[in-house]
């Protein structure tokens, strides 16, 4: 046996088997299983494995070979089952398929060497082409837009626009920080009371739109009532509240 052969050069069990078949000049369709199994085991025994998975794959093949060997040695089985095929058949198929891919891989390798002699180039798009902007096709641009769609879009916008000033809907998801100081507001109302003998509660809100401002102003009124600086009269429910100042300095 050729001991000098690079034992670890086999890629796998099929590779080793093919080597043995070629070396022994064996007809792949009629593998002398006893001889091949013997040689196979001999090689595997001499191989060193860094990779345990690879070793187990070689051993799985060894088991397959032993299985085939034993099945071939069992006489009479074929007589019971006429259609029972050669126990080697599956292995032959695998070897043939593997052999085919191996020969293709040699061919591809040659092609790789050939095509390595071909060079390509990077794209080089001229500035004039790069900077080109396509002319505008209005009809394409407008697409299936028409007047009624444009109209509904506009109505939607107006609606949305309104929603923004709508106090309830605008509160949803939109929290605006407002600078409302209770103290400042109180001073403002107190000051107002100093200069006005009687005034309308509603009039106080003339320039105050936000809810917070209204509440704060109302609290100021309550505070002034508590400290007896004003009195209020409301004739009817929901009527305007008439405020009478007790601290007015003006005639």
């Amino acid at each position, binding site marked *: 046996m050729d001991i000098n052969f690079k034992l670890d050069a086999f890629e796998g069990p099929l590779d080793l088997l093919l080597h043995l078949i070629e070396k022994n000049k064996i007809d792949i369709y009629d593998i002398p299983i006893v001889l091949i199994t013997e040689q196979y085991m001999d090689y595997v025994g001499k191989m060193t494995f860094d990779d345990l998975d690879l070793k187990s794959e070689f051993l799985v093949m060894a088991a397959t070979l032993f299985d085939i060997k034993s099945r071939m040695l069992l006489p009479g089985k074929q007589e019971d089952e006429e259609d029972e095929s050669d126990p080697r058949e599956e292995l032959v198929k695998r070897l043939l398929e593997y052999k085919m891919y191996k020969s293709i891989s040699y061919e591809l390798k040659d092609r790789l060497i050939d095509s390595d002699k071909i*060079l390509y180039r990077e794209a080089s798009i001229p500035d004039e082409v790069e900077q*080109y902007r396509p002319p505008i096709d209005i009809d394409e641009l*407008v697409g299936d837009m028409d007047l009624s769609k444009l109209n509904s879009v*506009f109505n939607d916008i107006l609606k949305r626009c309104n929603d923004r000033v709508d106090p309830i809907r605008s509160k949803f998801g939109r929290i605006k920080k407002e600078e409302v100081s209770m103290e400042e507001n109180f001073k403002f109302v107190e000051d107002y009371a100093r200069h006005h003998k009687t005034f309308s509660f509603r009039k106080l809100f003339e320039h105050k*739109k936000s809810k917070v401002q209204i509440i704060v102003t109302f609290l100021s009124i309550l505070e002034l009532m508590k400290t007896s600086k004003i009195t209020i009269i409301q004739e009817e429910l929901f009527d305007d509240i008439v405020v009478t100042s007790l601290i007015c300095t003006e005639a």
Partner: protein
Amino acid sequence: MENKDRSLEGVLEAILFTMGEAVSISRLSEALDVTEEEICSAIGKLSDQYDRQHRGIKIIELEGAYQMCTNPDYYEDLIKVAKTPRRYTLTDVQIETLSIIAYKQPVTKVEIENIRGVSSDHAVNRLVEFGLVKEVGRLDAPGKPMLFGTTEEFLRSFGVQSLDDLPTVNEERMEEFKEQAEAEVMQQTTLADVEV
């Protein structure tokens, strides 16, 4: 080099093709072991051949160097492939802006912005570019802001005879909205009273 299947022209063509950049005559001469005169003469032949055959490529000379480039005659066709034709359609923002201009014209950018609640500068500019909108004057107000309106192109592409054809916006409904909103403010106020 003197192979019947190969020529100096072919070598130079292959080199200039793959290099992309300009390659100096001296470098070519040195690498190929051919005089600079021979290089120039071969490039000249190649160039002439390109011109005569209306080739898609050409060779230009740049201060003692040669570079292969695209024949500008073919730029027009090149654009069709290089610039993947993009289908342009109006964006939602552009449509919105266009509808405001159509219904509110003449209108300033600030007004559009107030209605949409967001800056519409870019959209207006694009619409002007597209030729759907144009400047129609200036508002007599501080800063003399531009007023925008729709173009004839707009009328044509939307199949409108005149601006009067624009479907009317339901102004009444708008008023209703407003009243409703005000009513709600009042209600809120009352509620606030009760709560406090």
